[in-house]
């Protein structure tokens, strides 16, 4: 027996819900991989945050402090430093000028260095400490350095892939 709604139901059935994009599958895959690694190592996200965040903060502190301690232009006026910092942030992948640091192992000398950002993925929302939401962004870099043999002038380029995962706290109103 035909119900009064049957035509309308059939018509609605013909509309196919939009498929989620590949981005969602990528984000889920990343989360599930993280889950598997948590299970294997027996760690929990909260424990990871508890121990890793202070270490990460210390690493950032040391990384920020080191250039200051070694800065040959330590006497530069603060305004110029601010301007320089702004410009550097705007062009993050500028190669550092070659330094003349000799390789302690032999005659190789570092002549160039550059970091290339080639990928960034928004992996969605994760919950760290309790209900605090974070947006997790994964950056992929290639760190390159060039070394020159002083005798033959041959140049060797070393490329090392690197991934940085950034947890950006989200505001909860």
């Amino acid at each position, binding site marked *: 027996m035909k119900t009064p709604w049957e035509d*309308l139901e059939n018509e*609605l059935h013909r509309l*196919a819900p*939009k498929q*989620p994009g590949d981005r969602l*599958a990528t984000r889920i895959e990343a989360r599930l991989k993280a889950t598997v690694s948590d299970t294997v190592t027996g760690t929990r996200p909260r424990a990871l945050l508890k121990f890793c965040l202070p270490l990460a903060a210390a690493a950032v502190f040391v990384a920020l402090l080191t250039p200051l301690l070694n800065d040959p232009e330590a006497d530069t006026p603060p305004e110029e430093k601010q301007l320089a910092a702004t410009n550097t942030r705007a062009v993050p992948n500028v190669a550092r000028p070659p330094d003349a640091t000799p390789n302690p192992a032999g005659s190789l000398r570092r002549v160039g260095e550059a970091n290339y950002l080639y990928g960034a993925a928004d992996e969605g929302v994760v919950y760290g400490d309790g209900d605090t939401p974070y947006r997790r962004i994964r950056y992929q870099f290639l760190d390159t350095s060039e070394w020159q043999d002083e005798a033959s002038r041959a140049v060797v380029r070393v490329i090392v892939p690197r991934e940085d995962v950034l947890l950006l706290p989200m505001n909860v109103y």
Partner: protein
Amino acid sequence: MATMDQDKAGSDWQGLLQEWGARLLLFARQQAADPVEAEDIVQEAFVRYWKSRLDRPDLSPPLLFTFVRRIATDRARQWRRRQTGLDALRIEVANGDGWFEPVIEDRERAALLETALRSLPVEQREVLVLKIWAGLTFDEIGTTLEISPHTAASRYRYGLGQLRRQLTPVLT
């Protein structure tokens, strides 16, 4: 053996996402302020469901809709103030992003149906989505939405009735 299990689990979740992803996203869109938030909710629900299923393989896929609903409710509670300020934006975003795959034939009619569906109250819309596109029974819909099956059936009838009233002058 562990690798085989992991491989199987890896392909299983993709199959599950392939089968249920579109329907979950459509349901999440009934709850979320915008498509991006709907995707966030589906991601969270899917991961939680999958983790639960590792311990309890008997969990049925329709439970995914319950996860979506709970996560959406939690987020709405946390972000209520922000959401109320975004009502206008929500409508704009929704208008720019369809809920359904584009159809080749009779596009105008499909657009009218979608517009009419969007205009329904959320209580009716979510029941329609769960019944028509997710294929749940009224019992399952009741469990998902924490209402009685009878209420689910009433909302379904009201929803269809309202849709028909809206569409009849246009489509006939």
